[in-house]
C-alpha cells in the first residue's frame, strides 16, 4: 500500500513542479511589466518596487525562490495589484466559498448519479431507466454556464423562490442554485457511466453464479455487482474534480458568490500576475492530489491491482 502511494507520488511531485515552472515562465513571457499602468513613475521608485517584489534578481533565481516559498512555506507572495494584500489573503477569502458549494456539488453528483445509474440498470427499459437516459442526454448539452442562467430564469425570475446571486455567508438559499448548476452535468455523466457498467456487470457470469446460489436480488446487486460496477465511475471522479474546479469560475462569475474563480477572473482582468500564478498552482496541486486519491481508491476497490 505504502509502496503504491510512493510510486504515485513519484509521478505527482514532478507533475506539480512542471506545472509551477511552466506557469511561472508563461508569466514572465507576458509583455510589459505589472506596473506599466502607472504613469511617470520615477525610475528610482520603480527600482524600489522591483526590489520589494524581488523582480530585480535574475529570473532563474526568482523561480527558485518562488518554488521554495510555495512548496516549503506555502507562501504565494504579495499581490501585484493590491499593495496591502498577499495572494494567500486572496485565496483564504475565496477558497472556503468554493469549497462549500464545490464539495456539496461533488457529493451530490456522485450520490445521485450512482443511485440513478443503478436504478436505471436494474430496471432496464422501465420509466426510471428512460428518465435517467433522458436526463443524461439532456445534461450533456446543457453545460453549467447554460444551466446557471436557466436556473435563475426559473427559480429567481419566475418563481421567486431563491436568490439569483450573492453568498450571504453561505446561507442555504444562496448555496442551492450554484450547487445544482455545477453538479447537473456531472451527475448525468456519472449516472450514464454507472448504468452502462452496471448493465455489463449484471450480464456477467459471476452475477449468474450469485443468482444461482439463491441470493436475494438486493444482495446480488449491492454485494456482488456494485463494487466491480463502480470502477469506471471512480476513474471518472478525477475528471469530475477538474471540471468542477473549472466550473467554479462560471459559478462565481454568474452568481457573484465570491469564490476563488472570481478572484481568478478579477486578477486576470487586472493583470495581477502573482495572484493568477498562485491560484493556478494551488488548483493544479489540488487536482494532482485528487487524482492521487482517485488512484488509491481505484486500487482499493479492484483487488487485481497489487497495493
Amino acid at each position, binding site marked *: 500500500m505504502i509502496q503504491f502511494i510512493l510510486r504515485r507520488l513519484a509521478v505527482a511531485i514532478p507533475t506539480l513542479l512542471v506545472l509551477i515552472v511552466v506557469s511561472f515562465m508563461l508569466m514572465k513571457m507576458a509583455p510589459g511589466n505589472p506596473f506599466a499602468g502607472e504613469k511617470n513613475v520615477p525610475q528610482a521608485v520603480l527600482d524600489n518596487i522591483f526590489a520589494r517584489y524581488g523582480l530585480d534578481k535574475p529570473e532563474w533565481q526568482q523561480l527558485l525562490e518562488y518554488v521554495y516559498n510555495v512548496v516549503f512555506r506555502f507562501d504565494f507572495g504579495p499581490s501585484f495589484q493590491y499593495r496591502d494584500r498577499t495572494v494567500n489573503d486572496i485565496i483564504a477569502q475565496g477558497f472556503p466559498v468554493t469549497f462549500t458549494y464545490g464539495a456539496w456539488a461533488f457529493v451530490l453528483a456522485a450520490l445521485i448519479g450512482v443511485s440513478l445509474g443503478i436504478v436505471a440498470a436494474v430496471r*432496464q427499459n422501465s420509466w426510471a431507466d428512460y428518465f435517467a437516459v433522458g436526463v443524461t442526454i439532456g445534461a450533456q448539452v446543457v453545460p453549467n454556464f447554460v444551466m446557471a442562467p436557466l436556473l435563475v430564469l426559473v427559480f429567481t425570475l419566475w418563481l421567486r423562490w431563491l436568490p439569483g446571486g450573492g453568498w450571504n455567508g453561505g446561507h442555504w438559499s444562496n448555496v442551492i442554485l450554484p450547487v445544482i448548476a455545477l453538479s447537473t452535468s456531472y451527475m448525468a455523466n456519472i449516472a450514464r457511466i454507472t448504468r452502462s457498467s452496471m448493465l455489463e456487470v449484471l450480464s*456477467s*457470469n*459471476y*452475477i*449468474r*453464479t*450469485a*443468482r*444461482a*446460489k*439463491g*441470493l*436475494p*436480488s438486493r*444482495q446480488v446487486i449491492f*454485494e*456482488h455487482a456494485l*463494487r*466491480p460496477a463502480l470502477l469506471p465511475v471512480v476513474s471518472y471522479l478525477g475528471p469530475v474534480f477538474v471540471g468542477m474546479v473549472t466550473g467554479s469560475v462560471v459559478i462565481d462569475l454568474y452568481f457573484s458568490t465570491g469564490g476563488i474563480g472570481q478572484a481568478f477572473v478579477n486578477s486576470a482582468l487586472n493583470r495581477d500576475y502573482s495572484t493568477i500564478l498562485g491560484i493556478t498552482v494551488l488548483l493544479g496541486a489540488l487536482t494532482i492530489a485528487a487524482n492521487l486519491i482517485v488512484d488509491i481508491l481505484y486500487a482499493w*476497490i*479492484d*483487488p*487485481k491491482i497489487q497495493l
Partner: protein
Amino acid sequence: MAQVLTVKDLSVRFALHESEVTAVDGLNFALEAGETLAVVGESGSGKSQAFMALMGLLAKNGSVSGQALLGDVDLLNLSKTALNEYRGRDVAMIFQDPMTSLNPALRIKQQLAEVLVRHKGQDAKEAERNSIAMLERVGIPEPAKRANAYPHQMSGGMRQRVMIAMALLCQPKILIADEPTTALDVTVQAQMLDLFKSLTDDFGTALVLITHDLGVVAGVADRMMVMYGGRSVEKGTVDDLFYDPRHPYTLGLLHSTPHIAKRAARLDPIQGLPPSLEHLPKGCSFNPRCAFAFDRCIAERPPLTEAGPGRQKACFYEGPMAYGKVA
C-alpha cells in the same frame, strides 16, 4: 428409486426482434435420487437452456412453460423470491467457465460463506469454518489460506474446485454441471470428474452433467439423454446407448469421438451443420443430415417411443445401422 425431479413438457422460447425461437421444445425427463444423468448434444441443441430455465437464469428475452416438480414444488411456477429458497440449497449449478464465474471483487471465503448464511442461517464465523472444511474436501491445498484469496490469484482448475465446493455446501438434492470440464486442461478434467463422482456419491446428490464430450459421459454417467434441435431424441442407460445406439444421431456422435484405444483409420463425423433454431427442418429435425432418412422422416416428426426396457428413441427407422457404409 425415488424421483427427485420430474420435468414435464418443458419448453423455452426466446423473443427476437420480430420473431420467436424455440430453444427447447416439450422436453420430458425424470431424475432419480443420487443418479448421474448425462445430457448430450451439439451447441444449440437446447441442453444448457433447458437447465438454465429450471434455475430461473434465462436471459431477459426468454420465457418458459411446462412443469418441473422438485418433490411437489413446481420450480417453474415459483416467484423469484420463492425460487431463491430452492436454488443454491436444493438445486445447485456449476458453469462452464470457471475463470469468469467467480466474483473478482470478493474473497473466496465470502463467496462460499454467504451461501451457508443465506440457506442454513449460520452465523458468519460458523459459515466460514464450514466453507474452509468444504474447500479441503474438494482438494484445495492449504484451504484456510486459500479462502482469503481473490479468484484472480487461483488457476482455472482451482477455481472450478471452488465452484464445486460452493455448489455442494448445502448438500443439494440436485447438482447441475454445465460443461464443467470444457475449459480445463485435459489432465485436470479427469481429476475433476472423479471429484464430482465421489462427492455426489457421498452426499447422495443427483448429478446432471451437460456436455458434448462423450468421453466424459462414459466414465461418470449412469443414464444419458441425447438432445437435438431442442428435443430429446434418445434416452437410456449409458451402456445401452454406447453399445447399441438406436438413433442415427447418437450413432453419429459416437463415431465423431476419437478413441485412442480403438485407433480407427479415420473419424466419421456427422455431415452438415446443426440446424438454425429459427428454421428447423420439417418432420424430424435431423433428417437433412441423416443417412437413413426416408419419406416419412421429412413429412412427420417422430415421437419419443419405447425402444426396449428403460430406453426410448425418437426415430422411424427400424433397420440395422452400419455407419459410414450405407448406400
